[in-house]
């Protein structure tokens, strides 16, 4: 079986999203995530990664490192960037207006990221943002 690296470092750009997806896919298979759980973690990682490509480095290009490990029946993905401090957990739940006119086009990504994983942790360490996303092998009957 092909050995999967435990981390990848990439230039923070949208063109690299496919590489990020491939890395998360390989680890999802390794931990044996259900196809639904795999989509959940792919979605959460995409939202976090795309945010970094858009906002972390406003004046230059920067790098992102994604680490992966398995803890019992959970896949743990850690995303590190050296961009401006950004804690996605400080955002309150988005208010979802049901009228098209009032409904804002943005702000959905972080909300989806938080909703589709089993745990999210954020830490600012030195000059780095560290975001951890945790996904269980399969969804429980209550979620």
């Amino acid at each position, binding site marked *: 079986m092909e050995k999967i690296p435990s981390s990848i470092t990439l230039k923070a750009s949208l063109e690299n*999203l496919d590489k990020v997806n491939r890395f998360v896919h390989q680890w999802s298979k390794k931990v044996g995530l259900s196809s639904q759980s795999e989509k959940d973690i792919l*979605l959460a990682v995409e939202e976090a990664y*795309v945010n970094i490509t858009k906002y972390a480095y406003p004046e230059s290009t920067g790098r992102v490192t994604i680490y992966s490990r398995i803890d019992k029946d959970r896949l743990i993905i850690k995303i590190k960037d050296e961009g401006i401090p950004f804690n996605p957990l400080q955002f309150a739940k988005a208010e979802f207006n049901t009228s098209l*006119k009032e409904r804002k086009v943005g702000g959905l990504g972080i*909300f989806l990221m938080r909703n*589709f994983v089993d745990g999210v942790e954020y830490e600012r360490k030195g000059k780095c943002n560290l975001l951890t996303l945790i996904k269980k092998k399969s969804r429980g009957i209550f979620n």
Partner: protein
Amino acid sequence: MQINQKKEGEVYTFFLNGRFDAHSAGEVEEKLDLAVSQGAQKLLVDLSGVEYISSAGLRVLLAIAKKLKEKEGQIKLCCLQPYVKEVFDVAGLTQIFKIYGTHQEGIDSF
């Protein structure tokens, strides 16, 4: 992302096939925008070939819906796969978009 387009009467249907993510969102937006700028007012987006959508995809559909509303047009969706439907539900978009189970129901609704 593969995008096919078909005109039936006044309804422009877009059949999307692939991942509707941040990578493909720009391409889809371009095609939908072009149709709207050329005067299309009734858009049906058939999502039967889409098994994954992220906020980038949702954002494109919302932006087009807003544009069309200003022009008194409408965008409707059909044939959502279960996971895509769930993302719409969580994002609170099932109340905003008119969503139909089959392509024909979508066409007939205009």
